[in-house]
Structures are given as structure tokens and as C-alpha cells.
């Protein structure tokens, strides 16, 4: 019986420390599911893993076209993993288009497992191949394994009685079985999955089980492969783990914050890639009192969340860049109203509609400055998918404490990547204390809605509270009373207060930490989803003997108080971003540090390799 949750090794098996593989095929080929199942079984086995899905922009492009290719990459390892990997060890290509699009990422000598049956005349033409690359020698620098997956799948299905298109559709499980053998993966998690997913449809369930095993046995039996591989367990902290995507972690973080504060989530949002999944996730959890509101547009989304905040709720809104642009005016309103508000921006390639399904970090200056007037807000950015959970809670904590809008900058990479997550103990999460005003606070028994506390925060009242009726609005208001004021000095004062209020948030922030050398030749400065690549690059550079520190900034407005100090300890500072130099600009203007920029605007993450070579160039200067 092979169906045990442990690795399947044999004498042919070679131990390797880590591997990066990518499944690629048509949008309809089920590559995302295949990749996720492989990830799951690797994680359950005990590897550390990191994943990178790559969707086409089209919903269902015609089969066989290059723009319809869907890919799923994962990196699994016997030690800590921080990125989905630069180069592929193995590429699974279900058709010529998948090969075409992905071959450039395969390392020299890498393995290609191709579904030979997919390499038809027509598909070759659709992908723009004049000849069959599997046979014409163009792939000589790789190890190519053509496998008749479709035929084998159909065959296997016949046995259980599934035929035609339905049978063909199972071929991803054949590929999965084969790759499971190749990397000695435990089969049980996948078998469990098939059984629970298709349990209601016995025919399909049995077919998939059969096909999956057929793929596995093919690897074991066929003479095709000289050897297979094993990647040992990683030394992960003990505990209960699950897999989590950034968007999911963010949704869970919001619900946790709601539970910790006793304030129900109001989530006003209009669908947009890559933020929609937060809405989908939250909508599934109404038993937590979560209220999701699919608004008619982004403006209604943010203003309804402001209405919720005025009502004493946890008002949250989310979008990607184009939708955040539309929310700008209302974010200004929230700033002047001094209400707590969470604005999530899951960044994607811009400007304009740009590259909706690709990642980028080019909305930093938009969220910093993209409003009329001097209108500072708090901006934070998680570094990894699971950090979305913790930082969602932090965002709410800040917003409630300071009565202020907090922008949460995620990106398409973090949102869609998954990683193993040590499930937190809910009972150990720190409560979020919210004190609503219930009594008049003025010297004459009146209520002063803009009377401030030590954080420069004003009272938050739940409408319905007797005696505390008050009016707020977007016109400049007198401090303390909150009445409309056109007084010049008051406007100066309020402008200053709004800025100081943001700066005071730094009192509650952790100091900036450094990974690697605390001082030295080069600080690799980053923020957001580039964390993993910068981390690995720093490790490599230090192994190579350089004195390098990785400074990953999670708090972008305000900066941690010690940031300047930290940066000044390095001879050179380079800000690495997936944009044309936005954080770099902020750092240069604030600290007058001659920071260099390492920038990439290609809709995809850094490669560790390119970071290392760029850093080495700088270090040698």
C-alpha cells in the first residue's frame, strides 16, 4: 500500500536539499490545483515551501494559445524557504504553449516533463513552433521526458468506466502522480483530497485515483528516469501548520481583529483583481458577524466603510491601484473626520489598467500623496503572505488607537502566494482595547468631539449615546469643538496636528531590525513582498563574505524612529523595489542619504540571482 503520508524512496533515490518545479498548461488544464496539491503534500511531509501562481489575464483563452497558459511554481526545501525560486529544476509542460512561455526559466540541465499528446500539429502552430521542440534538438541543453499523458489517462479511466472529455480532463492527476514519484512525495494527502473533493461523484473520484496512481507507477516502472529525488524534512518549529495565501491571511486577520476588539467587520468593496479574494473569503464567514457589502463602485465602497466607522464599526475597504485612485477623495474625508478606517491596496502592474494579474509595488507614492491637500495617513506593508494576518490586526489596532485611516499595502505576489503557517493560538492574541466615549468631556458639560488624548486621538462615540450628539464633516474644523472653522491659525494648527498624529504612531511601532550585519558595506533596503528574495540574496552575499544587512521596512508612514540611524551604519544603501524608485525617493528626501535604487518593473518578483549580481556590482564600486 503506497497510500501513506510519508515519502516514497527507493535505492534509485538521490537526496537533494531543495527543488523548484513548475506545472504549466492551458487555463483549463487544472495546473493551479495540481500545484496546490503538490505543495500540500510537500508541506505535510515537512518541507518548507513557497509558491507562485501565474494566471493569464484572460478567463479562458482558447486552448493551446500562449496567452492562455497558466502556471504554478513551487519551491520546497529541507531548510527554510523564502522565495518560490529563481530557476526551475523541473518544468511540467502540458502543451507546446506552456513550454514556449516557461522554458526560459528552466535552468541548464533541468528536467522537462512534457505531455507528448499535447504536442499536436495544431498546438505547435498555435504556440508558434515551426517544428516539434521535443524532437528537433532545440532542447538539447535540458533533459526532456516526453510522456503520453493523455493516452495513459484515457486508458486508466476506461478501466473505471470514465470516457471522452471527462476522462481527458483527469490528465493533470497523471502528471501529479508522476512528479510525486519523481520527488518521492507522500501520496496520502492527495488521495485524501481526491476522496473528499470528488466523494460525491464516485466515477470521477475513482478515475482520478486511478490516474494519479498510474502516473506514479509510470515513474517507478518506466525506464525513462534514471533516478528520482528526495528532499528531507525541514527543521521547522514544532506545532500545527496550515497553508495560507496572503489574501486569506488578511481576511482572517480582519476577523481576528474584529473578535479581539468586539467591533464587527464592515467590508465595503468592489471586485477587482487581485483583491477580490478578500471579499470572497470574508463573505464566507458571516457567523462572525462580518458584513460584506459589494458596492456599486470603489467610491461607494470606501464611503460606506466611512459610514460604518462613524457608526462605531470596523470599516474596511480594499481594491487594487485603479480603485484606490478612485478612493482618494474619500480617504481625505476620513483623514479630516479622524475616523478609523482600513484601506487595503493589493498592488498590481500599472499605470492605468496595466497588467491586472501581475505584481508590482508602484502604488506607494499614490497612497502616500495621492489626495488633495496635506493629507498624511498611516501606511504599513506586510512582507510575507502570513504576515498579512498579524499586520491586519496591527492596522486595526493603530486605526482604533489614533482614530486615523491606515493603508495596508499588499501586492499581487503576496496575495496569491501561499506558505505554511504555524497556526496561532487564538487565546493568546492580544486584545484590542477600544474605549468609546460615553460621557461629556467639556468643562461646561458639553461634548468636545475633537478633544485629544496623548496620541492626539479624538473620542469615538457610538451614535445612540445620549448627550454626545455631534456633527463632523469635510470642511476644516476647529480643534477641540469640531465646528466648521475658516480661521487661518486653526487651519495651520489642524494641518500640523494631522501630521503629528501620524508621526506619533511611531511611539507604538517596533524599532527597525536588520537581518544579517547590523552595519557594514551595504544595506539592502526593501518593503512588501520582495522580502524573501532580499533575504536569500543577503544570506548568499554574506556567505560570499560581504558585510551586508537586509533592512525590510514594514512601516512606511511613519517610519520606525531608528530608521535613519540604522541606515547610516552602512557605507552604501540600495533600495530594492518593484517600481521606479518610490521608497528610495522618500528615504532620500527625508534623510538626505544618497540611496541607490535597484528597480524592476516587469510584473514579477525579483530573482535572487539578479539581486546578488547587482549588489556585488555596487559592493565593488
Amino acid at each position, binding site marked *: 500500500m503506497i497510500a501513506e503520508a510519508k515519502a516514497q524512496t527507493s535505492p534509485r533515490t538521490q537526496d537533494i536539499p531543495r527543488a523548484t518545479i513548475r506545472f504549466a498548461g492551458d487555463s483549463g488544464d487544472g495546473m493551479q490545483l495540481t500545484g496546490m496539491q503538490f505543495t500540500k503534500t510537500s508541506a505535510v511531509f515537512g518541507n518548507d515551501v513557497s509558491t507562485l501562481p501565474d494566471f493569464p489575464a484572460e478567463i479562458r483563452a482558447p486552448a493551446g494559445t500562449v496567452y492562455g497558459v497558466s502556471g504554478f511554481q513551487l519551491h520546497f526545501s529541507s531548510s527554510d524557504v523564502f522565495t518560490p525560486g529563481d530557476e526551475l529544476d523541473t518544468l511540467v509542460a502540458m502543451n507546446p504553449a506552456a513550454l514556449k512561455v516557461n522554458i526560459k526559466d528552466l535552468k541548464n540541465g533541468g528536467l522537462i516533463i512534457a505531455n507528448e499528446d499535447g504536442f499536436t500539429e495544431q498546438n505547435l502552430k498555435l504556440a508558434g513552433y515551426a517544428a516539434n521542440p521535443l524532437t528537433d534538438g532545440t532542447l538539447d541543453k535540458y533533459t526532456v521526458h516526453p510522456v503520453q499523458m493523455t493516452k495513459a489517462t484515457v486508458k486508466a479511466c476506461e478501466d473505471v468506466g470514465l470516457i471522452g472529455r471527462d476522462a481527458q480532463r483527469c490528465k493533470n492527476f497523471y502528471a501529479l502522480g508522476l512528479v510525486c514519484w519523481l520527488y518521492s512525495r507522500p501520496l496520502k494527502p492527495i488521495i485524501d483530497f481526491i476522496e473528499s473533493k470528488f466523494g460525491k461523484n464516485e466515477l470521477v473520484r475513482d478515475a482520478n485515483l486511478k490516474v494519479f496512481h498510474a502516473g506514479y507507477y509510470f515513474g517507478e516502472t518506466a525506464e525513462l528516469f534514471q533516478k528520482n529525488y528526495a528532499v528531507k524534512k525541514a527543521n521547522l518549529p*514544532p506545532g500545527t501548520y496550515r497553508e495560507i495565501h496572503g489574501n486569506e491571511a488578511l481576511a482572517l486577520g480582519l476577523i481576528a481583529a474584529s473578535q479581539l476588539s468586539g467591533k464587527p467587520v464592515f467590508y465595503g468593496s468592489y471586485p477587482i483583481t487581485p483583491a477580490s479574494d478578500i471579499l470572497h473569503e470574508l463573505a464566507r464567514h458571516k*457567523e462572525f*458577524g462580518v*458584513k460584506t457589502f459589494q458596492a456599486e463602485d470603489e467610491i461607494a465602497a470606501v*464611503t460606506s466603510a466611512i459610514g460604518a466607522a462613524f457608526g462605531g464599526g470596523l470599516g474596511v475597504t480594499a481594491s487594487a491601484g485603479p480603485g484606490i485612485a478612485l478612493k482618494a477623495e474619500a480617504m481625505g474625508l476620513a483623514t479630516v473626520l479622524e475616523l478609523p478606517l482600513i484601506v487595503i491596496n493589493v498592488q498590481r502592474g500599472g499605470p492605468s489598467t496595466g497588467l491586472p494579474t501581475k505584481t508590482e509595488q508602484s502604488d506607494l507614492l499614490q497612497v502616500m500623496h495621492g489626495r488633495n491637500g496635506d493629507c498624511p495617513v498611516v501606511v504599513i506593508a506586510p512582507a510575507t503572505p502570513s504576515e498579512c494576518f498579524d499586520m491586519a490586526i496591527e492596522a486595526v489596532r493603530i486605526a482604533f488607537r489614533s482614530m486615523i485611516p491606515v493603508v495596508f499595502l499588499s501586492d499581487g505576489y503576496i496575495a496569491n502566494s501561499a506558505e505554511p503557517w504555524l497556526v496561532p493560538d*487564538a487565546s493568546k492574541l492580544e486584545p484590542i482595547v477600544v474605549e468609546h466615549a460615553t460621557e461629556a468631556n467639556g468643562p461646561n458639560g458639553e461634548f468636545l468631539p475633537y478633544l485629544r488624548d496623548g496620541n492626539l486621538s479624538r473620542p469615538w462615540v457610538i451614535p445612540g449615546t445620549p448627550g454626545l450628539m455631534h456633527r463632523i464633516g469635510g470642511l476644516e474644523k476647529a480643534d477641540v469643538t469640531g465646528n*466648521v472653522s475658516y480661521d487661518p491659525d486653526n487651519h495651520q494648527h489642524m494641518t500640523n496636528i494631522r501630521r503629528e498624529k501620524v508621526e506619533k504612531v511611531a511611539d507604538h511601532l517596533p524599532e527597525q531590525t536588520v537581518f544579517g550585519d547590523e552595519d557594514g558595506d551595504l544595506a539592502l533596503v526593501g518593503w512588501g513582498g520582495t522580502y524573501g528574495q532580499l533575504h536569500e540574496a543577503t544570506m548568499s552575499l554574506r556567505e560570499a563574505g560581504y558585510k551586508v544587512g537586509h533592512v525590510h521596512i514594514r512601516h512606511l508612514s511613519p517610519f520606525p524612529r531608528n530608521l535613519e540611524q540604522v541606515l547610516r551604519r552602512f557605507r552604501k544603501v540600495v533600495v530594492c523595489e518593484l517600481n521606479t524608485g518610490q521608497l528610495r525617493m522618500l528615504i532620500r528626501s527625508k534623510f538626505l542619504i544618497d540611496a541607490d535604487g535597484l528597480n524592476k518593473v516587469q510584473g514579477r518578483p525579483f530573482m535572487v540571482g539578479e539581486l546578488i549580481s547587482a549588489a556585488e556590482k555596487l559592493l565593488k564600486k
Partner: protein
Amino acid sequence: MTTATEEPRKYTVADFASDQDVRWCPGCGDYSVLAAVKKLLADIGLPPENYAFISGIGCSSRFPYYMNTYGMHSIHGRATAVATGFKITRPDIQTWVITGDGDALSIGGNHTMHLLRRNVDVNVLLFNNQIYGLTKGQYSPTSPKGKKTKSTPMGSLDRPLHPLCIALAAEATFVARTVDMHPKHLQATLKRAAEHRGTSFVEIYQNCNIFNDGALGHAQDRKTRADNVIELEHGKPMIFGKDLNKGIVLDGQHLRAVDVGEGGVPESALLVHDEQAPSGIHNLMARMKWPDLPEPIGVLRAVQEPTYNELMEAQIAAAVEQKGSGDLQKLLSGRSTWTVE
């Protein structure tokens, strides 16, 4: 959130007045609406903390500052959206939206339409003065075609939107019209709006005596309005005129004004107003335009349908019923975990 610790007290108009000076132009129609609303709330007898007034931007949108209730003067066109989030969060607070013809139908047209189709339980007062007051006199979406204003010195080119028609198209559950200078009617209509569960949409003809004086004079002038408007009453035949000697009949697909009584048609031939009729007929009524026909004021349509906020609460209750009230630890663990030892 009505706290019942003290014994019930009577409220007066003064209890609903804030400490801020009212800053509309002397003579502006907004004053009478403010007075009517304060009186209504005093009559209802609930305390001021039970109310919220949410407005956009425009002269009329300064309204919340003058009410001693919870209030927000938000941004241009978005009061309806703010109120939606507010009401969903605070279903216990009676929520009023104050908006203008520009605020609600120009920049805010879409939110208005979506509020109405959702039937969120708020009361919308649309101050229709057929002009942009606050920005000093440009034509608005309700200005008649050909209107000469600062921005249209040769006359406007676009055909006006009819607020009641838009509301009916969105299947609003409560659609009414009233007039600033007809205090009794105003008061009665606001009362109906307050009582309705679901979105109440009230168009108020309001005089901007600075930039559009008399544009709605036919409905405002006490001396002549009886001939120019028709006061609707549910279940009553549609009669109008100073001497109540004119009426409306449904003639095939058209509405027509007729003389009633001697020399005219009998009262029994008149159209009987039915607030709950399918909105086809209300649409015909909404399109009655002076001077061709008297313009209907009062409640055109009032039907009961579940409100968005009730349905939202019901879904949450159903989810709790089905799954138990949320267990955070279970949520964090998700559907499948594994253990590293």
C-alpha cells in the same frame, strides 16, 4: 441604543436645534424644511441621539450642522453611500440623507439609484432647487432644457432628469414629493417618510431665491398652486383645483385633466390613487408636468419590501444558526492542518 434609564420625556423643537448659526441666504427654502424636520422629530418623541443626518455637499447639505443629532457633512454625491454603510452598521439609528439635485442626481446619481434598489432603510430628502446653489448658479440635472445660467449663457442642451422617474425605475419602495412653502404638506409627507420601512425618497421643491428665484413658483405660490399641483391621497380620486372641480382620468394609455361635476365627468370616473399599484401608473403620474397637467405632490408609491439591512442581519443570524457563532480558533486552523513535531 435608546437608553431607558430616565423616565420618558417630551421633546421640543429646541431639543433638536444645534448651537450653530444657520447660514443659508435669508429667504432660502431650506429654512422651512429644517423647521419641519425639527418639528417632526419633536413630535415623534424619540430622543435626539436616536437620529443621524448624513449629507453630501451643497447648500442644502449644510443641514446636519443645524440638527442636535449625530450628523455627517460628507463629500459631494456620496451621502447615500455613507448612509448605506452607516445604516448597515447601526440599524437601530433612524438615518436621514440630506442631498441636493446636483448632489443626488449629478455626481451622486449612481449611488442614489443603488441605494433605492437595495431598499436600505434610510430617508432621503432631495432638495430640488433646479440649480447648483453652493457653486453660485450653474444649471443642474433637473434644470429645464434651455436654461440660461453662468455655465450655459446660450441655454443648456440636456434634457432634465425627473427624480421621481429615476426613483420609480429603481423600484424605490417609497416615492414622494412635497414643497418647501407648503408647510402642512411638507410636514405630513416627512412624517410618512419617517414611518416607512425601507428607503423613503422625497423630492422637495425648494426655492433658491438667489440663483433661481421662482423657478418652482407654480408649486410654491399659495395663491395659485391649487391649480398647478394635485395633492395625492391613497384611495382617493385624483381631484385638484382651488375649487376642487378638476380631476385626472386614465384615458387609454394617457392621463388627462378633466372638469369634475356639472358639465364635466362624475367623480367616480376619476383615477383613484393607489400607492401600491405597480409602478407603471406611477410613472405616468411622475411625468405629469405643469402647465400641461398639475404636478402630483404627496406619496406616489409606498410598498413594503424587506430592507437591505434587515436581510443582512437575517443572513448573519442564519449563518450563526447553521455554523454556530464564529469560533476564531477553528477559523485560523482552516480546513486542513498538519503537525510538525
